[in-house]
């Protein structure tokens, strides 16, 4: 998978931008705070309609503008695709795929995939369960776009049930009670299916994480990913019934896949509390690499790799090992300092305050 060209209008710091990319490795070099990461974020947005930096929509629109536009010319095994996304402050975003209105987000998954490494990835190990869930769910959908309706259906059922819980304010009349039964049924149905997909993904990913850890760290260590879920044994339907009184009192659904976690252990010890900072950093990279390899294997084509400032935290050995561990494909990386000398650069873009110049190699 390739991005050949990127156009931006009023996206973050960029008023107008038209940028071509070559295959292979593209290095975006420039001091901190000049907008290098914004370029990766824009590419990520064209692929996922979301910021991999978890930025709110508003933050992506240039100050003083009402909307931002991201256009990307993509290529998947020789099939070209044009993605055009308009991000509006009003929240009504428009997305065109090959000049046709995008029917489902999952249609985009069939055209382009990205793997993004961000400086905040350490949080995957150290932070709360939300980031780990979205890593797993993201891979579940990227693996097979037909999984997207399961995830979307679960999320929407949950929002509907929570809205109902809030509206009844703890008092259930017959019609509210029957409605809650309906949403329990819908939520249990999609939630059970989502959890099966998550479990399958975690089973597939675990050996790949162990292997990626060895490749990057240079030594053998057993990594185990465990799907931690409070309700699976009992079943979601029954768990929702059991939790109903508490849910009504709190006005929110307290049990379900949205509360699950993926615990990660390194050599029998929980990595979140027991691994060193260096081990945690390697583990975070290994998770991303494993996901990337999984998708590359399934689709027979590597997702576009976005490496946002990952070298600043790594010594040269591990940086080289990381790059060597990634399958061939397009890589776009940002760095404030010259990348390790072994990085074979095909394209070098220099970013200064608001301008980008290509330096011939």
């Amino acid at each position: 998978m390739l991005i050949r060209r990127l156009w931006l209008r009023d996206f973050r710091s960029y008023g107008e931008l038209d940028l071509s990319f070559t295959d292979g490795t593209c290095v975006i070099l420039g001091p901190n705070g000049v907008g290098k990461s914004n370029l990766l974020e824009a590419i990520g947005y064209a692929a996922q309609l979301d910021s991999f930096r978890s930025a709110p929509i508003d933050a992506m629109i240039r100050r003083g503008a009402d909307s931002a536009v991201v256009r990307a010319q993509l290529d998947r095994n020789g099939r070209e695709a044009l993605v055009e996304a308009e991000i509006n402050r009003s929240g009504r975003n428009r997305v065109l795929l090959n000049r046709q209105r995008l029917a489902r987000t999952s249609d985009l998954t069939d055209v382009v995939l990205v793997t993004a490494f961000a400086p905040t990835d350490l949080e995957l190990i150290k932070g709360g369960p939300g980031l780990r869930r979205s890593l797993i769910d993201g891979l579940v959908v990227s693996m097979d776009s037909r999984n997207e309706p399961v995830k979307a259906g679960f999320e929407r059922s949950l929002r509907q049930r929570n809205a109902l819980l809030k509206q009844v304010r703890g008092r259930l009349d017959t019609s509210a009670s029957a409605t809650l039964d309906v949403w329990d049924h819908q939520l249990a149905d999609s939630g059970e299916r989502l959890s099966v997909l998550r479990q399958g993904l975690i089973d597939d990913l675990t050996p790949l994480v162990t292997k990626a850890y060895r490749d990057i760290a240079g030594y053998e260590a057993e990594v185990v990913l465990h799907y931690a879920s409070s309700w699976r044994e009992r079943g979601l339907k029954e768990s929702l019934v059991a939790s109903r009184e508490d849910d009504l009192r709190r006005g929110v659904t307290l049990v379900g896949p949205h509360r699950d976690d993926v615990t990660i252990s390194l050599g029998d010890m929980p990595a979140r509390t027991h691994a060193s900072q260096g081990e945690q950093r390697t583990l975070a990279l290994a998770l991303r690499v494993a996901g990337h390899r999984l998708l590359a294997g399934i689709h027979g084509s590597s997702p576009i790799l976005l490496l946002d400032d990952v070298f600043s935290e790594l010594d040269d050995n591990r940086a080289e090992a990381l790059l060597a561990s990634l399958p061939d494909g397009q890589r776009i990386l940002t760095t404030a300092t010259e990348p390790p000398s072994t990085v074979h650069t095909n394209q070098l873009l220099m970013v200064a305050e608001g301008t980008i110049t290509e330096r011939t190699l």
Partner: protein
Amino acid sequence: MAGAYSEAIQDLIDALGRLPGVGPKSAQRIAFHLLKVDVDEANRLARAIVRAKERVRFCSVCFNLGEHELCEICSDVKRDDHVICVVEEPRDVVAIERTHEFRGRYHVLQGAIDHLQGVGPDQLRIRELIARVTAGGITEVIICTNPNLEGEATALYLSKVLDVPGVTISRLSSGLPVGGDLEYADELTLGRALEGRRVITGD
């Protein structure tokens, strides 16, 4: 943006922008189009809106749109009184009528259960539907809500509350594009879904 247009133009753009499916840019385009056409044409549109608002009302039995106390379908004596087709909106009645596969009566819920929009069962015409079904004479209720999450939830809710002896509850068969609206299905697909409906409860 404030002060870009005179007040009258801005009022028109705002009013158009509140219509479903009309974004700010389309609202602007329609407004300028209306200002460009001659007075007669603009008046025709204005009169059509006023007339429709004055004359058209909801049928007192099925809540479809019509110009009298009873809509055209409810006042048609040749239709089958034993079967009711439940839909979300009047436009769904039109979609099903186009298939020529259904000769019974309708019930228009005026929406689907959607708590995110503040719509629960009490905001829909469900109480009236239950009254129609329990009053007797009905043998089958076909639930034709949209094949999306809210439509399915509404169908499930109805199948629970319409548990009346001697009444079969059925649901449009799958085969309709999931997540879509009934009105976007072509006649053939919709006709087939109606024919191949599956029984949820009843005999």
